[in-house]
């Protein structure tokens, strides 16, 4: 770059201003992700809760619903306790089915069987069905 017209100090000032501007942009580009990364999650939690009316879950009947985009199921034991489980079989991911006459879950893909508590009775599943937190709120059941 030939120093024809402007003397070095003048050019330098211009360049430094330019560099300062670029650095400012880069600083902003770094600050934004940093702030978003550190900001607390919206909604104060890891996801939304789902409400299901109590009347949909009779004893011996399994109520299937969607929970955070994935299939889930509610069952009520004879003693009146509610159990919320993920309906995704822990073997390879198929959705389990409820066998009303046997009172257990059966996975149609490879015959895995789960108790209403989610525990594995028999078959290939390696782990029990994931339990979801459920609480009673008047005549609603809140999951999550």
């Amino acid at each position: 770059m030939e120093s024809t017209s402007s003397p070095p100090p003048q050019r330098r000032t211009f360049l430094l201003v330019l560099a300062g501007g670029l650095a400012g942009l880069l600083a902003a580009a770094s600050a934004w992700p940093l702030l978003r990364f550190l900001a607390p999650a919206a909604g104060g939690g890891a996801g939304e809760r789902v409400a299901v009316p109590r009347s949909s879950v009779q004893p011996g009947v399994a109520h299937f619903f969607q929970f955070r985009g994935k299939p889930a199921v509610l069952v009520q034991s004879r003693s009146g306790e509610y159990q919320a489980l993920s309906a995704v079989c822990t073997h390879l991911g198929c959705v389990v089915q409820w066998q009303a006459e046997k009172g257990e879950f059966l996975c149609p893909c490879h015959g895995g069987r789960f108790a209403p508590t989610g525990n594995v009775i028999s078959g290939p599943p390696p782990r029990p069905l994931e339990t979801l937190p459920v609480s009673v709120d008047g005549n609603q059941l809140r999951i999550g």
Partner: protein
Amino acid sequence: MKRGLLFVSVALFWLLPVGLALAAEMPETVCLQCHGGQAGPLGAPVKAWQGSVHQRNGIFCHDCHGGDPADFANAMSPARGFVGAPEHAAVPEFCGRCHVGVLADYRESLHGVKLAQGGAQCVTCHGSHAVKETSLELINEQSCTRCHDYGRAAQIKTALAETDARFAGFGEELERLKKLGVSVAAAKGALFDLRNRYHRVFHSFNVEKVRAETGRIASELEKLRNEVAGHDARFSQRKLWGGIVIGLLLVLGVVLLQVRHTYEEEERDR
């Protein structure tokens, strides 16, 4: 002595999974030890089973046939659950102990209804030991015309073909996204479930039922496709912003070098 034992156990514990993996997950059950060394029809199932989808998922002889896999004396003992090889009409029950959903659909089908009269069952199309992953090619003229004409089978195959291809495509897309760090476990499970529902419904051999289920499955696949597209859109956007920031950095670097240049010039002029 203790150190030697320690060394051996460390080596074994590390070598065992390596060895297992190398031997394609084949611990030697007594079934394999005995039948593996035999010629002719008694040894053929072992070779057929190797490379099968069952072998790759750790399903061994005793998992279907029962018996004790570790004890030669009781390997074929009915007391230990040995059921032997099923007769033609008992095959669906045999396979259906695990493949529950398929059995239910099969029973409703014409093949299932005609089972006692020698109708096709699981082994007829899928084979017994050399079972591969299901593919549309199991439906082919050669296979189906063993008993009847190919017309309806061809119809069903056409109805299935497009969706089947999309399943394969999705599987690859999810693998591609996985390599970019996306958490695809849930999507893979959903895809697996869909594929199984799909393959299962085929066993009813009911064209209308297959078409209806195909329609339902297509809409689920559409949701999956949107999910994949969403990820790809995010990646494109990242590349755009990333490219801009990289450009800014390069320009800044050049500008700084120019600043340096002005100092050098000043010196030269002095």
